[in-house]
């Protein structure tokens, strides 16, 4: 076995070889080992951690990220909000869909650095402060618009955007504009039914 190098970590001391120098990252990072100095200035070099700020579900967040860190990695691994799922990491499945400045995007293909200053909404941000579900969440539950539930956070955010964009006028249009979210369980007809139900309730 190769010799294990000493790495700085965030205050965790395990088995003695994972070192002790803690780098305090805002946003409660896990396992985001420090590479070098944290910088506030983008563009200073490949090994710098850069501090970015954005609004996540209405709350301002500041986190330090590597240049290569994706938005979904920042959400899951650094901030620790795991509602957003990874299904492919290449923009092919839509499981990681979040809203960025009101638009649905695949958070696996968004570099976290480019989110600085943006408004992000994830599945965790849909219920109102007293815990009442968003109508789309309720509709998905009632229409059984999922089975395993893994693609569901992305489907729900995509569905909300689908109506917002005006792409939910007919079932055919919903099907086309929900085709960026794969559901391997095959719940598609129920997903369409949930979106139609929310659309109709909004219109009435």
């Amino acid at each position, binding site marked *: *076995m*190769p010799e*294990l*190098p000493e790495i700085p970590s965030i205050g*965790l001391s395990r*088995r003695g070889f*994972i070192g002790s120098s803690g780098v305090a990252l805002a946003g409660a990072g*896990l*396992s*985001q080992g420090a*590479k070098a100095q944290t910088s506030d200035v983008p563009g200073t070099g490949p090994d710098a951690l850069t501090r970015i700020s954005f609004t996540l579900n209405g709350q301002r967040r500041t986190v330090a990220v*590597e240049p*290569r860190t994706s938005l979904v*990695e920042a959400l899951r691994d650094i901030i*620790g*909000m*795991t*509602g*957003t*799922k*990874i*299904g*492919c*990491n*290449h923009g092919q*499945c839509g*499981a990681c869909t979040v809203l960025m400045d009101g638009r649905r995007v695949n958070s696996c293909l968004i570099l976290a650095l480019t989110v600085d200053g943006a408004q992000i909404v*994830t*599945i*965790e941000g849909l219920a109102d402060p007293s815990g009442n*579900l968003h109508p789309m*969440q*309720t509709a*998905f*539950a*009632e229409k*059984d618009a*999922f*089975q*395993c*539930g*893994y693609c*569901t*956070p992305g489907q*729900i955010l995509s569905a909300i955007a689908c109506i917002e964009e005006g792409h939910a006028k007919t079932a055919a249009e*919903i*099907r*086309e504009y*929900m085709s*960026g979210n*794969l559901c*391997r*369980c*095959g*719940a*598609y*007809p*129920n*997903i*369409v039914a949930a979106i139609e139900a929310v659309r109709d309730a909004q219109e009435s």
Partner: protein
Amino acid sequence: MAQTINTEVTRTDAPRKVTGTASYAADFTPSGMLHGALVTSRIAVGQVTGIETSRAESEPGVIAVFTHETLPDYKSVKGFYAGGPGSAGFWPMEGTEIKYAGQPLAYVVADSAAAARRGAALVDVSYAEGEANVRMDPAESFVVGASGDAKGMVATKGDIEAGLAEAASSVDVEFVTPFQHQNPIEMFAATAEWRGDRLTVWMPSQSVRTLRAGIAAAYDLPETSIRVISPFVGGAFGSKAGITPYTMLTIAAAKAVGAPVRLIVTRTQMYTVATFRPESVQRFRIGADASGKLTAFEHIEIAQTSRFDDVVNPGTHMTRAMYACPNIHTEQRLARSDTNTGGFMRAPNEMQTFFGLEQAMDELALELGMDPVEFRRVNDTQTHPMAGVPFSSRSLMECYDAAASSFGWADRAAEVGGMTDGDWMVGYGCATATYPTNISPSAARVRMQGTGQAFIELAAHDVGTGSYTIFAQIAAARLGLPVSACDVVMGEAHLPLAPISGGSTTAASAGSAVHLACLAVAADVARQVSQLSEGPLSGVDPAQITLEDGLLRGPDGRSQPLVEALASTPRGEVTAEGQYRHPALTDEALRLTYRGGYGVAGPVTPDKAMFAFGAEFVEVRVHRWTHEIRVPRVHGAFAAGTWLNRKTAHSQLMGGMVWGIGSALLEETELDLPRARFLNTNIAEYLVPVNADVQEIRVQMLEERDDYVNPLGVKGIGELAVVGTAAAIGNAIYHATGKRLRKLPMRMSDLV
């Protein structure tokens, strides 16, 4: 208490699933966790001649790089098809040998997932490359188990040649089906944490008990030292059944670095580190007399397997159960090629074989000038054609009649090419669906409280099937509680035994155990209240007390709600376990299941044949200019004993038909022959259905009573509706275009 069985009940886990709070394996992060990444083989066959790890090791964030030479305490387990819990019989990183492309060769641990992946990219492997074939050669096929126990892999009844000779019409046709990958949207993940000799593994699993038993045996640990946690599984479809090398590598790596490690397998690596549906060739020779009655039925299946395992998914055992025939011959054959070992993919024996069978039946019906539905009716039977035992229940023609009626089968133009709509050529087709009813032993524990709640505990899994909900429903119905008062705990190996969530066994098997546990709770409460000095059942012989919809009933009209009776006992709480075993289950199968294996009764027992049935009707449209094939309508009617939850069952059947569309028209793992690799190893070019591919899907759930299969009368439905869809689509393509497509997937390129 309102009846909860056979109603539409919203999933009890729905609130968690729509809020992102349902926790899948990769959502658990033990403190101090590190990240793993796999290095996989570029070549398919040969030797590792060297692995240069220094560049990877000097990459910032990389903690360790393990190879076959440097990973201590890495253990393997025996492969499934050799009677073990493993996904394959050959284990990578035990030596230098390479037997398939994409084989794991090194394991990188780093402080972030990105650093681990980067480290993996920097590992340089040198190879001595041998000759490889990824595609099987059917000419080199052999009978399964020819060298040992053939277990009915070749079966003959009557005289097939004589039957063909007396036929008025016959078909001799061959069908080809591709490699397919399950591609659940949740990527394979494993997190391992050692604390001394205690190990916790978080992993999406279709069998937490198998996982724990296998790990315990491999590491020579008591099962009490191992926790396996898998509360939610983001789709499995067969891919998360066995113990895979990536799991054992992660366990070993975590042990070696002394910190928890999580591996998320990349989508591309998912094609080679677990299992898949092997490619196959299906040959049918079927003859019928002028009245349409079959005189001969022959089916020879040749399926691909790896060089080191015999993957036995006996489709011929299913096809020979379908239609009455005096002369039957079936052969289950294999041919090898250089891949990892295949395995289960939703309807593993049935999808590809029924693609062939049900198109062959359609061809023969047309030869005979018979309506395809009437042709099935003439050959329908209540007796298993090969085994000679009656079906415990079989409602195939009821399904045909119900689906034909809702679909409007009678309105079709009989002649090929007779229907068009603008630029679309329209065709109708139908096919039989079936799935064997496999019944595993199972156990469940129910703790009921007089305050009106119950906890139901069992080592079952919810892979999207609705298990959490149906177990709560069963308990609610028996105990007389609302569904919301029944809390189901599953997905952990320390819970009472439940079977692998495969083979559509869970609802029927584990559901029966929950039912029995509830009866045991009631018996305990009955005994206690009979001994109380007062109360409606005081002094009654407990043997005379029965449980009926939450009500304890004694003689002379004396009764008391169970929950009330329980509240009146001193403890006010009862825990009881139910142990379910089908009477036809052998001791051997029982023993196997309780040791982490997969033992079942059925589908054919000494007394009965247990199958669920259905009929599917599709409308296909083929575009005049683009030759695109679209499926605007699928109607399926199914009979599978008792429906537990009409909402989740509907979703299972609907999703099954969506899978059928995918198999029919889209799904194929493409091959790069010169390098013997799977080619389209992603989920953009491996086409699965998107929302726009699925339009009208209508599901009918027929009533059927079956007292033989299990106390609940339930047959499994997780895979049923996948079967037959591809053939129905093929039959409809023929009806629309006059072209008979005998290879999956059926693509526009086949119609130009």
